[in-house]
């Protein structure tokens, strides 16, 4: 049987003229498929909303409270485990040094002082070198090069900030 255009009218919920309605009614009397289509559409359109049993909100509040307690407990255990793991790793890493430090403190003290002196002198040398560079380089570089360099830094900074902003502002994907 030819269902056109009746099937299309029904499927698209199209408004029909009185004349078209008459033709449709005639067709529905002889076509079981279009009749089923019409009936199911009518039933779907008139179906009611199902409501939850009373006290839904109270049950949600209880669930939320339980969730919060569980979350707090999870965070606490997480923090304890994280700290313990960190302490174990730290002990594993510094254990041998600690043992030898306890065994002969004089050696470690002299090594530590040596490192501090080395660090201090290196920093002073770097500071002196940078002063020399900054006093010489500007004489070789024209001002527009500085302009370009600063603009590049500013551009990269702006790009970075915008990327972070867009990433954090992006809406929640549908259906979490």
């Amino acid at each position, binding site marked *: *049987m030819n269902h056109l255009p009746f099937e299309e009218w*029904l*499927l698209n919920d199209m408004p029909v003229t009185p004349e078209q309605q008459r033709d449709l009614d005639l067709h529905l009397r*002889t*076509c*079981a*498929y*279009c*009749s*089923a*289509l019409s*009936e*199911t*559409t009518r*039933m*779907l*359109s*008139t*179906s*009611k*909303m*199902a*409501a*939850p*049993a009373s006290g*839904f*909100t109270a*049950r*949600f*509040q209880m*669930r*939320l409270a339980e*969730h919060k307690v569980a979350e707090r407990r999870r965070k606490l255990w997480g923090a304890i485990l994280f700290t313990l793991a960190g302490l174990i790793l730290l002990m594993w890493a510094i254990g041998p040094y600690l043992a030898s430090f306890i065994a002969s403190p004089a050696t470690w003290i002299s090594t530590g002082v040596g490192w501090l002196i080395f660090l201090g002198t290196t920093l002073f040398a770097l500071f002196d070198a940078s002063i020399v560079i900054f006093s010489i380089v500007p004489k070789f570089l024209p001002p527009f090069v500085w302009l370009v360099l600063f603009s590049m830094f500013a551009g990269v900074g702006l790009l970075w900030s915008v990327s972070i902003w867009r990433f954090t502002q992006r*809406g*929640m994907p*549908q*259906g*979490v």
Partner: protein
Amino acid sequence: MTEENAWVVRAQQGDDDAFTQLVETYQKPVYNLCYRMLGEPDTAEDAAQETFMRAYQNLHRYDSSRAFGTWILSIAAHYCIDRLRKKKFSVFSMDAEDEDGMPFEVADPASPDPEAESVKLEDRKRLNLLLKDLDPTDRAAVIMRYWYDYSEIEIAKSLNLTVSAVKSRLHRSRKALAGMWQAEKSRAHPERRSRESLAF
């Protein structure tokens, strides 16, 4: 700013009472969607509760340019689709609904024609049962279209589909439902078959 938007803003700032107001407002639409999708009151209750929990946890990501109702129904639909895909329901006891939509419908004895009322009720119940045979996403599209009067654009946004995909899914589902309904009726009233024309 509407009252609802004010609740959302307050809830986003950590006010649980404001979120409770949202739960109070949307419990019925969310529950109905879950019930129509999953078919069992207990499972639907659990899914609706989980939907609100997910909304609560992700409230900071809610885009206020969209209606809150659309957002939460979208969460419910996706949750139910995932749940249906993970677990095939062996029992689907859609018990239909009463005047308030409660899932234990009975024919109204005070109706002028209780028998016709009862037949209508049975028909609706059977149609609801047929919904279970649809693909979960198709089912969600049909529910959004007929229980929530969502446009194809709104359904597309809620289910992350294109408008043409929604149209095609709705047509396919409606045709499938009509076919199943026809077969169901033929089974229920075999004597009428000889008088009716063939569908295809």
